[in-house]
């Protein structure tokens, strides 16, 4: 039995399904619990490549969820992922805007997560408050379903997978999205943490506003060159 079938069978035999978190034409996301030891995991089953998740399988990082197992067969992927317990940033923002210090702290940790992804040639492509979980003092970036491996100098259009309002213009087919697409989305997210609005409607004030503006330039060439530059600016 290959990994794909083995993991699918194990979900039925070894785990209880607690909740269906998300379901779409492309696949589903379940919260499952191990029958013996009660540990909770996220189970994803979707149509698409497992390339990104396979790259993350061998690593452990503070600001990214652990990927436990990945299997792929006939264009479909199944995987088991660490369940991150905490509030999403969007839930936190419902309670009010964040101070500059709080927003900076979160943004820096997201930079850290994105630096790891980008250094592995992965663009997240869906950085938004729903995909950021606050676990105590730690910030964890989740959901790589829209992610993909980018290849330098390959000219090809990307599919619309990001979230409207947070996705960079080039994600809509203007050019291939690289790590700077995530810098754009992170700029929007910083602005939302500080003002509750997209920067085109209300820009954060002061130095943070200038950082947001640089992150969200329509032309990717004018944004921070890479996530480290943004991290340093923060």
């Amino acid at each position, binding site marked *: 039995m290959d990994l794909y079938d*083995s993991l699918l069978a194990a979900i039925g035999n070894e*785990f209880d399904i607690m909740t269906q978190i998300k379901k779409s034409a492309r696949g589903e996301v379940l919260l499952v619990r191990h029958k013996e030891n009660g540990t909770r995991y996220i189970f994803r089953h979707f149509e698409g490549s497992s390339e990104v998740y396979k790259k993350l399988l*061998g690593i452990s*990082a503070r600001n990214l969820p652990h990927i436990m197992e990945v299997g792929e067969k006939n264009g479909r992927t199944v995987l088991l992922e660490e369940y991150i317990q905490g509030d999403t940033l969007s839930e936190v923002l419902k309670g009010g805007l964040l101070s500059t210090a709080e927003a900076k702290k979160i943004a820096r940790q997201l930079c850290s997560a994105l630096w790891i992804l980008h250094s592995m040639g992965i663009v997240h492509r869906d950085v938004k408050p729903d995909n950021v979980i606050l676990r105590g003092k730690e910030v964890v970036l989740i959901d790589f379903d829209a992610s993909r491996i980018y290849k330098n100098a390959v000219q090809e259009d990307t599919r619309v997978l990001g979230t409207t309002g947070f996705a960079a213009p080039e994600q809509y087919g203007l050019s291939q999205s690289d790590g700077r697409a995530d810098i754009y989305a992170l700029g929007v997210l910083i602005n939302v943490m500080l003002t509750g609005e997209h920067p*085109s409607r209300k820009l954060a004030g002061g130095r943070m506003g200038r950082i947001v503006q640089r992150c969200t330039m329509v032309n990717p060439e004018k944004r921070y060159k890479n996530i480290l530059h943004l991290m340093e600016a923060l």
Partner: protein
Amino acid sequence: MSKKCVKCGHPLPEDASFCPCCTAVQAEKQEIQTPRRWKKKALVAAVVLLILAGAGAVFSMYHRPVAYEANAQIVYPDKDHSYKLLVTYSESDGMAGQAQGDRTDLLADGLDSALPCQLYVLNEETGEVAWEEFAEKVKSCEVETVPQENSKKLEYMEPAHDENFPNAAYVSNLHFMADTGSNDIFWKLTMENGDTISLKTRLTIEKQEVVTYRPEDTPMETTEELNTLLASIENEVSSDTPVYLYLPAVTYDGEITFGDHVWQIFGSMDGDAATTFNGTVHVNGKNGNYGIVSGIRFEGNSGTGLNANCFVLLSGCSFSGWDIAAIAQDGSWVSASDCTFTDNGTALKLNTSISYGSSPDFLNNTFTGNGTAVCIDRLPGNEILNFAGSIFSGNGTDIENKTKHTVDTANAVFE
């Protein structure tokens, strides 16, 4: 199954990383740390800061912060050369080094509007724009508005560099109503060396009288009646006086021309009936006069739906069946929000010689089944056309951007 779990011995596929039976991880994961470069840099920065702090202590013995204050412009002497700072509402004035102190605008009752208050920084000797090097010396930039007696406070956006005005250091959009009155606007820059620069300007908004026509007092049920009314407005109402026109829920055939005024044209609905134009509508404001058209259906078989010869703002209108639904030609501009454009040859066409205003927004429109949804033939200026919330669906071409004008579609949806 050719491998066993390292913990419980459960059989696993050869390439398994995890045992679903006991949840043991089969191979140690490589721990990735926070980037070292940042940490190193922080350390280097800390050392540099210590050195600078020492140097700063010596420097501060010789440099005491200075507070500079003036009305709309000032010369700020820096150690290398002097900068001219000025506040204005006009990009060309800003580039030419001409400040705009007090300004008075007229606004018709019931309207709200905005002005981009801009701060320019020029090299005092050469007159060249120098905001980028100057901005590096600025610690913070703030704006405050103070209403005068019997006036309301001007709402403003925090000042920031704005790509719509690439030569201005900072822009703060000021929002006002017809009854806002007079406000002092204070710009305050705090420099890294502790100096402060304060500039003051004043904006006064005066309420403008308007003439209003409603179907209950004025005949306008037919095309002939409407044309008669428009002809009498041209003859009897000064072009300086805005005209508010509330149209009944009827269909007008043939061409209609709105002449040289500020127009607010409101459509209405009565059951299934709605104010509808079947022929071309021309809006012909001059010398800054413009038209705001809302809640009207433009239904055609060919030709042009709306021909803008001045600035025309469309809101909540629908266009279908035209060769060109709405066109802005020389000296004009069309902006549209909350509109639908369905089954037209070209929905929005910009072929104009002017750049316009601070808010070139095309928000929340729906473009469906058009040959071309947006066609930009000619358009000067640096404004970013913002299509936030707009939906493009089933069009032959969504945006034909012949001039490569900057377009922001980050928040648009393409289906």
